[in-house]
């Protein structure tokens, strides 16, 4: 994270950085860059990465499926659809310039709209597979609607939308980070509390039920936490790909266990670290041109997931 703050178009040596942070210098150029740009971004990457990774872990355990990620249930699609509505359609008429805060709000509404839908369905259907397919279909529906919007949209608006879709941890305000930290932190603690029933869920719902897990309650809680975390990140950073899918596997390999009491904290740490690294690479590789974070995560994530599945070295 420190490296993340140091490196950039304007590099800031470690000594200066420590000085800037400890003395809360905000007047100098370096101070401005650190406090307004680099530090919020670095923190956001850590938070976003860990939230997405935990969301992925929860859903992988819940569905007992190693290739499930946080967006499998249509969270990102819902957010994307709402953002598309705001950014591409003429709904923004009457507003002189598109307020970035507006798209965040739209994404939040989209993500949580999808989440409420999924949770409603989850209380009705028994089988996890049905729910999974429902989520996938919901995603396709949103995608379809989005592409209709894209087809009708003006050309210059599309680029902005495409860039949003690729996700970025840039341009975070301290307020957003504060909210993210508090809300997400509460959920992460809740998730750690869920790790005992999560372990039982590893044996499937039937065994979990006969071991004393209240399936209905925990199914709801697991989905709620997973969707809330993923939705939160999507709203502020866009749909950042692959972190949620790959990191839980990496954690399993690193800690050589499927015990969620170890994996939950492990995944939080790994998710934060890896996302920071990816964000660093994204900014630094073709500096000053900044690559979208999803490009980097997918670039590393996809081959890794493929090789993991080929070798079958990881199990749920």
């Amino acid at each position, binding site marked *: 994270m420190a490296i993340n703050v140091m490196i950039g178009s304007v590099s800031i040596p470690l000594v200066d950085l420590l000085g800037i942070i400890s003395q809360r210098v905000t007047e100098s150029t370096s101070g401005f860059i650190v406090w307004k740009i680099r530090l919020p971004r670095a923190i956001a990457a850590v938070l976003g990465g860990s939230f997405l990774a935990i969301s992925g872990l929860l859903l992988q355990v819940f569905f007992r499926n190693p290739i499930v990620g946080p967006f499998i249930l249509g969270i990102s699609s819902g957010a994307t659809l709402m953002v598309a509505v705001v950014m591409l359609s003429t709904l923004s008429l009457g507003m002189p310039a598109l307020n970035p805060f507006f798209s965040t709000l739209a994404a939040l509404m989209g993500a949580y709209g999808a989440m409420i839908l999924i949770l409603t369905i989850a209380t009705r259907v028994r089988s996890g597979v049905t729910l999974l397919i429902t989520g996938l279909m919901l995603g396709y529906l949103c995608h379809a609607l989005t592409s209709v919007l894209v087809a009708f949209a003006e050309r210059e608006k599309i680029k902005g939308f495409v860039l949003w879709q690729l996700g970025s941890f840039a341009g975070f305000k301290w307020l957003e980070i504060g909210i993210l930290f508090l809300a997400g932190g509460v959920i992460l603690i809740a998730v750690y509390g869920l790790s005992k029933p999560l372990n039982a869920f590893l044996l499937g719902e039937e065994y979990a039920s006969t*071991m*004393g897990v209240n399936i209905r309650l925990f199914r709801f809680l697991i989905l709620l936490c997973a969707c809330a975390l993923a939705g939160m990140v999507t709203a502020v950073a866009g749909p950042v790909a692959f972190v949620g899918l790959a990191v839980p596997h990496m954690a399993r390999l690193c800690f050589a266990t499927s015990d969620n009491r170890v994996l939950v904290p492990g995944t939080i740490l790994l998710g934060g670290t890896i996302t920071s690294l990816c964000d660093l690479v994204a900014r630094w590789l073709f500096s000053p041109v900044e690559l979208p974070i999803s490009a980097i995560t997918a670039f590393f994530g996809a081959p890794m997931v493929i090789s993991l599945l080929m070798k079958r070295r990881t199990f749920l």
Partner: protein
Amino acid sequence: MNRRSSSEVMIESRDLAVGYGEKTVLAALNIQIQAGQFISLLGPNGAGKTTLLKTLARLLSPRQGTIFLDGKALQFFRQEELARVLAVVLTEQVSPGLFSAFEFVSLGRYPHTGFLGTLQKRDRQAIQTSFSLVHAEDLAPRQLNTLSDGERQKVFVARALAQDPRVILLDEPTLHLDLKHRMEVMSILQRLCREKGITVVASLHDVDIAAKISDQVALVKNGAIIAWGPPEEVLQEETVSALYDFQGASFNQRLGSIEFRSNGNKGSVFVVAGMASGVILYRLLSKRGFSIVTGILPANDLDYYVARSLGAECIVEAPMTEISPQAFEQASKLLAAADGVIDAGFPVGNLNRKNLRLLDLAQEQGKPLFTLRTDIDAPGFRPSADDQRIRCQTEMHLLEKLGSSLKER
């Protein structure tokens, strides 16, 4: 079906109907299971054994009626409370991932541990006990995904035991297991019953094993439990054949095993046997497709039970009586119609001396006569002038010669 007993009733169902979705699989079940008994559910695939077990475990809700577990209606149990009374072993293959067998079994402590599932000393002891009950202490440190099917099943039973249950429900616990592990798992279950007083309800496919281990068996077929009771009463030849719609096989209660019948298209053979001398021969002949006629056997002879199960035509005499002229008459008629005759090497005594006369008859009629008798030249077996007996050392040997001899004719 509704037998009251003085001992404690562990599971009871009243007017129970089980099924899934809109489909009722079994209806009007009134079951009573005493504590500490071993109950086997037998029946063909798809009869509803699994559905019944899952309903008893509250994984499916009953379509109708009520289940009482230890006197309390099942639906009033809290989930963890239920888990402390009842544990299951299902057929579903689960791969929970990177767990050691110890960690896996420790998941069974779920209903006994605190918020984060931290193991206390008492939990560790319970896990150790579970491992030793299934004779798998050595498996504890192994990774779950390195275990063989048999070892895995023992660990799964240990996990159920770690819940410290009073009832264990098992769905096909011996499926996919080799003979050694099948026997081992069954004897483990039996011991749980006898020594720990745990009530075991298992769906099984092996009628023979079920008959030897269970206190009660339930035969499940056509949407109902068609029979319920001690295997000694329930598992008759006709009941078992009807249960599985056996064709070409039959279950013999006294033998406790299933015999396979042949279509008998290779020719008919008359076997002169008795005192268990013919058992191996019968099975071999049946397997190779010969139809068997055998006699003259006492009605309580092992040879008779096996031969009858194999569908052989038997000429029988009352036990401990000398062979009657009527039986001999019947035998010589059937012998005349046979393609070949075999002397199984039966011990000769006063009561069955006439069987030797049958062999002479065969020679006189020019039937190919095969013999397994080793003491063939011993005094008392007067060799006839033109002894054409084909001597064979073993049953396999005999079958070879029989096959080629019948082909020539």
